[in-house]
């Protein structure tokens, strides 16, 4: 089944307390080469049928309207997962 991936990240200017907590753990583990961590979300939308331009546009719309909140997050990327199906 074809899969469309939507990647969402908290806005760069916002504090990401969860990422900060992970960064703190890395520091305690001595992994000093990593200075910061930010945690985002990846959605995998399984498509029933061929992935047309219209389906991709629908996924983009969904990403903007529901899967992300533009006040606090940015949609980084919406793309068809390679090897999981082909565009019609």
């Amino acid at each position, binding site marked *: 089944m074809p899969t469309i991936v939507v990647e969402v990240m908290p806005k760069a200017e916002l504090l990401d307390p969860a990422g900060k907590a992970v960064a703190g753990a890395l520091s305690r583990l001595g992994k000093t080469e990593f200075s910061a961590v930010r945690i985002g979300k990846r959605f995998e939308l399984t498509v029933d049928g061929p992935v047309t331009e219209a389906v991709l546009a629908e996924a983009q719309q969904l990403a903007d309207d*529901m899967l992300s*909140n533009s006040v*606090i997050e940015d949609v980084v990327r919406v793309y068809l997962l390679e090897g999981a199906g082909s565009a019609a």
Partner: protein
Amino acid sequence: MKIGVVTFPGSLDDRDAQRAVRRAGAEAVALWHGDHDLHGVDAIVLPGGFSYGDYLRCGAIAARSPIMSEVISAANAGMPVLGICNGFQILVEAHLLPGGLIRNDHGDFVCRDQRLRVENASTAWTSGFTVGQEITIPLKNAEGGFIVDAETLKRIEGEGQVAFRYLDVNPNGSLDDIAGLTNAAGNVVGLMPHPEHATEPGFGPDTPDAMRSGTDGLTFFTSVIEGALARA
């Protein structure tokens, strides 16, 4: 007067909100997230909790549940709607109030009796207060940090849409110490603290007079009832 309290999967404080409604003198009507029926209520409370497990974002899935299309229509037509904690998050996700709520800046869940200053006493839910009045009601959340873009912040500050501000400490990193908002019309109010938990002597926050005697939250519910009576 009938005040509906919507129960979503994962609502926690719906029963407390119903009890607060009854203590204030109105009839509490249980509303269900999966219905398209407001059962003739005159006002609506979206209670606290963790609707849909806070999946996606706090309040995001609840804001798109069946009952919310009716709640949004009613709110836009002027019906009083109060969102408490998760209910506030739902109102924001439903675009009935501006901004967003993110994880507390310190990363921890916080539970405390919170002092607030009433900034707007002209809304459907705050008309029984006076501007500048200081009240104490419980606060309990992990994702209560209010944020909004600079332009919108300037607008809501300028137009009196900040309804409540945190006093003493900012418990979650909210911009401008904002604890609650109203819409421009004043019928939709949302806040992170829980007025329904400060409506009954013996079960509220401590006051200088006696332990657990605080009932400042009752005024939210009596305000909306008195407003309805005044219009009748």
